């Protein structure tokens, strides 16, 4: 019975996500893009439901079963939006050309898909084992995230005590704790299973979004390979199994950038994707403070791509902000009403900032950590393994060659610019934040790189030609035949 209630909690968020993604999803996109719509709907649904959970926590928590009522109202609103948008899309479709014809997959593609499936199963088993060994999660999980979920679940009038100074990072956004608390409400009790299930869900969604995006843009072969490269990144599985919030942040960043790739490919048909791009960036901002930087950086990247391709800037940014606004509003309410000040920026003085910025040993340390982490990130770990994935990727790049598609290059520019600006933002934070830089780098560097790695894999495979799988098609995009 408890599991049924838990499934109901997931069901509400997933259906809400499906309806809202369905309302914004252009029907003119290829049929296989629906897999992508489905995979992003689960993550976005959890993001949106966490906002409704905050509304419940602020105003309706004392009423019995009010969490179900709030979720039901949100779902009803989403269904209404989906049906309304569906009617207008059907009218538009009458004048639009038919979507791309279905494609046939070759035996190699099936073989790769099976191998990918096996890798996913193996990764899932590995994550289950890690979760069972650390039922409360690793240090940051129980000290920062799960403890806040307990305040939200158990706390009566004084739930906002979780923003009191004895607790750490009182300015962190609440997507993850609210989702955990919301699902505990459905389950009827606090348990370690809910954070564990969520922890295992995020990396699977990351792989699903990456594979689905690549399948739409470059074909099944590149999609499977990109998925395998990501699954070969042990840190992704480790940080996720430890119940850190870096995995959902990574998911929402990848979702936003994957949708940006689709928008670059179908700028006219995919106009409404910009709303979803904004929503994904909003979810990232609602997950961790780094997501706020991401939302700003993506705004700049979209502006650059729109200017580069001579598209009107105002409608592009208006749609992006439309998707971003609800989440930004929730973040602002949380930050202005409850949250304490950020530890990174308290006690900062101008002379102190100047001293840190002109301390060349800090620059040296950050660069050296970055070089070492990038070298070891994809596959090597403490076992002293030789990192072979990067050389393998380079060999693949040499053989596959660089794409000549204008749309792919635009997507690559958007992705590359976003990743570059994010890296510059992280660099600046390291430079100005803590006096104890070595501790700061040691405890966070790998996680920050993990935010960017799935999107970097997307960019790498976006810029490379798909092996013997693509040919020029009609319209702005290529039609992939595998």
């Amino acid at each position, binding site marked *: 019975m408890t599991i049924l209630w838990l499934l109901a909690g997931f069901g509400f968020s997933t259906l809400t996500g499906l309806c809202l993604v369905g309302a914004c999803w252009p029907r003119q996109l290829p049929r296989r893009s629906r897999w992508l719509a489905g995979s992003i709907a689960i993550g976005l649904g959890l993001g949106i439901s966490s906002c409704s959970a905050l509304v419940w926590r602020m105003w309706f928590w004392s009423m019995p079963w009010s969490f179900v009522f709030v979720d039901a109202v949100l779902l009803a609103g989403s269904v209404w939006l989906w049906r309304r948008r569906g009617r207008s899309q059907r009218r538009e479709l009458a004048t639009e050309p038919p979507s791309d014809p279905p494609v046939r997959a070759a035996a*190699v593609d099936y073989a*790769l898909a099976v*191998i*990918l499936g*096996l*890798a996913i199963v*193996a*990764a899932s*088993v*590995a994550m289950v*084992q*890690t979760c069972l*060994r*650390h*039922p*409360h999660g*690793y*240090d940051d999980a*129980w*000290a920062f995230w*799960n*403890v806040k979920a*307990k*305040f939200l679940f*158990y*706390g*009566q*009038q*004084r*739930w906002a*005590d*979780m923003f*009191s100074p*004895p*607790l750490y990072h009182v300015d962190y956004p609440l997507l993850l704790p609210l989702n955990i608390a919301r699902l505990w409400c459905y389950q009827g009790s606090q348990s370690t299973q809910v954070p564990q299930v969520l922890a295992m869900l995020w990396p699977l969604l990351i792989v699903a979004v990456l594979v689905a995006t690549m399948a739409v843009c470059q074909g099944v*072969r590149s999609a*499977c*390979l990109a998925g*395998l*490269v990501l*699954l*070969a990144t*042990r840190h992704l*599985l*480790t940080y996720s199994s430890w119940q850190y919030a870096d995995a959902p942040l990574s998911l929402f960043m990848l979702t936003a950038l994957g949708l940006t790739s689709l928008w670059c490919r179908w700028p006219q048909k995919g106009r409404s994707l910009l709303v979803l791009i904004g929503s994904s960036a909003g979810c990232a901002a609602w997950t961790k403070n780094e997501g706020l930087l991401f939302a700003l950086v993506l705004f700049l990247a979209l502006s650059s791509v729109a200017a580069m391709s001579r598209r009107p800037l105002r409608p592009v940014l208006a749609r992006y902000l439309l998707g971003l606004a609800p989440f930004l509003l929730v973040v602002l309410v949380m930050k202005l009403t409850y949250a304490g000040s950020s530890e990174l920026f308290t006690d900062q003085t101008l002379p102190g900032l100047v001293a840190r910025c002109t301390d060349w040993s800090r620059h040296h340390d950050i660069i050296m950590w970055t070089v070492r982490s990038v070298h070891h990130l994809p*596959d090597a770990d403490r*076992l002293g*393994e030789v990192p*072979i*994935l990067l050389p*393998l*990727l380079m*060999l*693949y790049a040499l*053989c*596959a*060659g660089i794409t000549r598609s204008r749309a792919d290059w635009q997507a690559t520019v958007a992705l590359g610019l976003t990743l570059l600006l994010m890296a510059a933002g992280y660099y600046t934070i390291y430079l100005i934040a803590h006096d104890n830089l070595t501790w700061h780098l040691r405890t966070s560097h790998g996680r920050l790189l993990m935010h960017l790695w799935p999107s970097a894999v997307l960019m790498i495979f976006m810029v490379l*030609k798909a*092996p*013997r799988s693509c040919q020029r098609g009609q319209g702005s995009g290529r039609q992939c035949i595998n």
Partner: protein
Amino acid sequence: MSRLRSTICTIVMLLAALRAIWLVWITLAVSSAPDPGPDHAGQDAFSRFEPLRPHLPAEGTIGFVAPSAQHGQRQRDIAQYVLAPLVVDTGDGHLVVVADFSDDSQLQLFLADGRYQLAARVAAGLAVVERAGP
């Protein structure tokens, strides 16, 4: 793309696939081995603080004292997680305080000055104490 390059691409793909599966297999092996990390000790500590709950208020702020600052900070963090939605503050400047010592003799030493009186002892060295008098 030439046939040779295509073949190399396919080989690279298969190598990547093998690499992925091998790494996941290694992860399995690592995760089934004993964990020497500091977190492992923490798992037992979670259950250590659970019996305190019936002796503490439902909400509000309590204090936390421990013999050493470094050990005490980690123990306070664990207590904060276990006892939430109570706020667990470092130090003894509160009406109700959790005293976490390694054994009962240290606990008795803490109570000896008469500022606090024992409310409930739940394990060796671990107790809820209350401020004595005004």
